[in-house]
Structures are given as C-alpha cells and as structure tokens.
C-alpha cells in the first residue's frame, strides 16, 4: 500500500461526474493508477463503472471533473487522441470488427503504430508495406498469447462469446498501451479460463502498464487487484486494498451480499 505513493500516477481522476437527464450516473469520483498497478472498480449493476470508463476513454464528455493522463489534462479529449497517448480499452458490450478476420482485428488494434499516409497506402509504397508486415507479426504474437492463434484467419463474427472477449483484450494490447481499461474481461469465461486471463493481466501489469479493471468476479478481483475502488449509485463508497474493501460492511451490503461473502469464505 505504501508503494502506491512512491511513483507518479499514470492515470489520475479528479472529481469526475456526469448526469443523464436527472440521473447522477457518476459523481465526484477520484483516484489514481500507478504504472504496473492493477486498480479494480467494483460496484452493483448500474453503479456507473462503465460510464466512468466511457468518460476516461473520451466516449462521453465528462460533466464535471478532470482526467489526467501522465500529467496531461486529457478531459474530454477525443478517443483516438487518447489512444495516441497510450490509453486503450475493452468493452462490456463487445465492439468487434465483425467482418474482418481475427488477425485483422488484432492488427487494427496496432493501427497507431502503423499509421501512414493515405497516399503512401494507395500507391503501396515500401514504407507502408513494411509497417503492415511488422504489425501483423506482433498481432500474431498477441493472438497466441490470448489463445486465439489458431483462429487467426477466421472471420471474427464466427467466434464464441468467450473468444470474442479475449480478442478484444488482444486488440487492446496491440496498441502497446500505457494505461489499459478492461470492462469485465472475464465475463463469459469459466473459472479456469478466468485464471488464464488473470495471468495475462498480471503479466501486462508487470510490464509497467497501469490497469483499471471492472469485474464482477470477486475471486479474480481479490486475487489480482492492488487497489479497489467501490462505486454505488455513482458515488465512491469505499476504497482500499482487497482485504479491507471485502470486509467493509457497506460494500458487503451494497454489492457482495452476505451469501456471496460467506460462500467465498467457505471456499477459501
């Protein structure tokens, strides 16, 4: 915990909030994520987790507050500009490039690093070709990493739900992000598959990427988080390390439920 204060945060959120009509979907949320750290955001359904992600990644314009990415105020910046600054994410409601192959989906994630000029692309100049080849190689490696290597040439639309979730992770990683936002990456995966994803996330974090995670699988969250932020009705109701959060009575009441806590304890 003390380590948190040592290095400069990669992502800092201050007093972030947004309203939809009369609904305060998110209000006054603030925390920060350090390089190599995994911060989880948990909370009941409709607490505002995905909305928070959407504000951080530039899909919604925050109504209040600031988002600071590596000391730069990026509040309300367009998603593609954020991507160029190293922010990458996955989606709770899958956003797959359906008609492209699995490989092309992953390569598209690498877009930033192969971005050339339309004219060069039109005339197939050598630079453009070289960049293409390089991104393909790194995309393949990523697909192998998430276990989709064999499906590289399938049309993305033909994958099962769990496979698509992993494809999204691969695509987000292809960006070589500094900050990675994962919205329920383990949804649709069984316990064993979830552990694989766990490992992957831990590896990525170990490379120095700041990770912000939304997940309802408490076992996973408790296992890998360095820090946990709890939202309820858009407000932060608790924050801290896994141990303290999981014992926080307010969190138990609003989110975990006594049954689940007991079950988890029993399993442990």
């Amino acid at each position, binding site marked *: 915990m003390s380590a948190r204060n040592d290095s400069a945060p990669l992502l800092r959120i201050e007093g972030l909030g947004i309203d939809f009509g009369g609904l305060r979907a998110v209000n006054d949320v603030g925390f920060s994520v350090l390089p190599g750290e995994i911060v989880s955001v948990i909370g009941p359904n409709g607490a505002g987790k*995905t909305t928070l992600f*959407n504000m951080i990644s530039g*899909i919604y314009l925050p109504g209040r507050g600031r988002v600071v990415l590596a000391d730069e105020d990026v509040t309300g910046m367009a998603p593609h500009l954020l991507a160029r600054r190293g922010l990458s994410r996955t*989606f*709770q*409601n899958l*956003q797959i490039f359906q008609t492209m192959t699995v490989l092309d989906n992953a390569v598209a994630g690498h877009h930033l690093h192969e971005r050339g000029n339309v004219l060069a692309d039109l005339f197939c100049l050598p630079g453009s070709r070289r960049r293409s080849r390089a991104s393909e190689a790194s995309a393949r490696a990523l697909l192998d990493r998430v276990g989709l290597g064999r499906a590289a040439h399938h049309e993305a639309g033909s994958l099962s739900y769990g496979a698509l979730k992993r494809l999204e992770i691969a695509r987000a990683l292809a960006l070589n992000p500094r900050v990675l936002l994962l919205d329920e990456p383990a949804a649709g995966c069984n316990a064993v598959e979830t552990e694989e994803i766990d490992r992957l996330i831990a590896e990525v974090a170990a490379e120095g990427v700041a990770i912000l995670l939304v997940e309802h699988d408490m076992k996973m969250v408790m296992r890998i988080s360095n820090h946990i932020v709890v939202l309820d009705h858009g407000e932060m109701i608790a924050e801290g390390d896994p141990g303290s959060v999981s014992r926080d009575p307010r969190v138990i009441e609003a989110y975990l439920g006594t049954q689940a806590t007991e079950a988890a304890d029993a399993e442990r």
Partner: protein
Amino acid sequence: MPELMQYLLSGVTVGAVYALVALGFTIIYNASDVVNFAQGEFVMLGGMVTVFAYGAGLPLPLAAVIAILVTAAAGVALNKLAIEPARGAPVVSLIIITIGASIFIKGVAQIVFGKQLHRFPAFSGDAPLRVMGATILPQSLWVMAGAVAVFVALWLFFTRTLTGRAVLATANNRVAAQLVGINTNYMMTLSFALSAAIGALAGVLVTPITLTSYDVGIALALKGFAAAMLGGMGNPMGALVGGLLLGILEALTAGYISSQYKDAAAFIIIIAVLFAMPQGLFGRKSTDRV
C-alpha cells in the same frame, strides 16, 4: 399578403403529398430498417388501378378501394417473393431488391397501363375555395385530411398497439423478436401490406392533382424519402412534419427566390437541419451502449 397565403396553400398541398408518401415509408422501415425504394411504385399503382377501374365504369370509391387492395396484395407479393427469400441478407442488399422491384413494377405498369398520362376527377369538384385572398382546390383538402388521418392511425398503431410494438421489435432485433414469440415473417408481410396500402391511398388522393403515369413513382419516392429523412425516418410525426415543411419550403422559394432552384433550396435546408440534428427533426438517437 395574398401572395404569401397562396404560397403557403400551395406548399401545404404539395407538402401533404410528400407527407403521404413519407408516411408510407414508415412501416416497412420500422419493421426492417429497409427504405423501400418501390414505395413510389405503390403510389403509382394506387393511382393507375383507380384510373382503370374507374375507366371500366366502376364508381370512384369502389375503384379506389380496389386499387388499395390490389396494391396491398402487390406489397405482400413483394415481401413473400423477394424480401422473405432473402432473409438474413444485409440491409443494402434488401434495398437493391426494392430498387429492382421498383424497376420491375414500373416495367409491368408500362406494359399493362401504357405510357399515357391519366387522371380521374377530383372527389369534390374543381371549384377553387377562397382562403384569405388565395385559392385552394378541394382535392388538396382531401390530401391533407388523408395525410393527417394516416398519421393519426400510424401513431396510434405504433404507440398504442402491441402489434405496433412487435413491428418495432422486429426491426430492432429480429432474433429476440422470434424468441418472444413474434412471427417476424408475418410482421414483415403485414408491414408491406400496410405500407403498400398507404402508398396506394396516397396515389388515390393525389392523382387528381398531380396526374399519374407509369413512371411517376421515382420522383414521388425521392421527395417522400427526403421528407421522411428531414422529419426523422420511422417516426410518423417526422413524416408528416417533414413532408409539410418540404412542401412549404419549396413553395416559398419558388415564390420569393427562384423557381429554378426551389428543389435546391429544399435540399440545402435538409442538409442544414441534419447538420444540427443528425437524426432529423423527430428522429430518436438509438441508444446502443458500449
């Protein structure tokens, strides 16, 4: 001042024609996301069949009813023979099918009805009515009444009936619609029948004003489409308001600016409106979240 009044009356007359055509697009669009490019041909069929039935000696109201039924049957046939077999095809492919259907129907009409212009008598005579120094033909009132009646009927259909909502559900998510027990094929057939019937009704009402021939469909469909988009596709209110607005805009431009560029003015305004309201005046943004 009487000029302005005359422009407005003209605009409302023409606008009601556009609105009727635009309303016809609504149901098929709401059931399938397809803009039916053959909608103009339904309007043509409505007018043409009435012309010939009336010409054969039937009383006008009966001729009109026959025309509407025949056109509705054509709509059902279009769905059964062309749209349903292509189930699962991308929306653009379905649109091309409707373009093909429009060419086909026009081709048939050209052979069956010939290439002459036709009209039948206005329902309530040709004596113009005077309104504040301007004049309007009684048939225009019929067209306006028709547009309003269809609008009200559609509005009730989509907001007050379960079937109306089932039609919306079919377009929104076909698989889910089947999973709750909606017979999506039937919904499509129904919507083609209703759209065609509305188109035919439009044809019946406007022919005394605009005249009809085998190839009036495209021009009407184009303006109706533009009107529907201006108002917001799929929303009956949008079709009505979009149509009237388009008609009035054209009339005012023709009256005050330039009759050569009246269509241009209409489209410039459409583009300007869409720039401010990308879903048209009454269109709702779809709320798919990520």
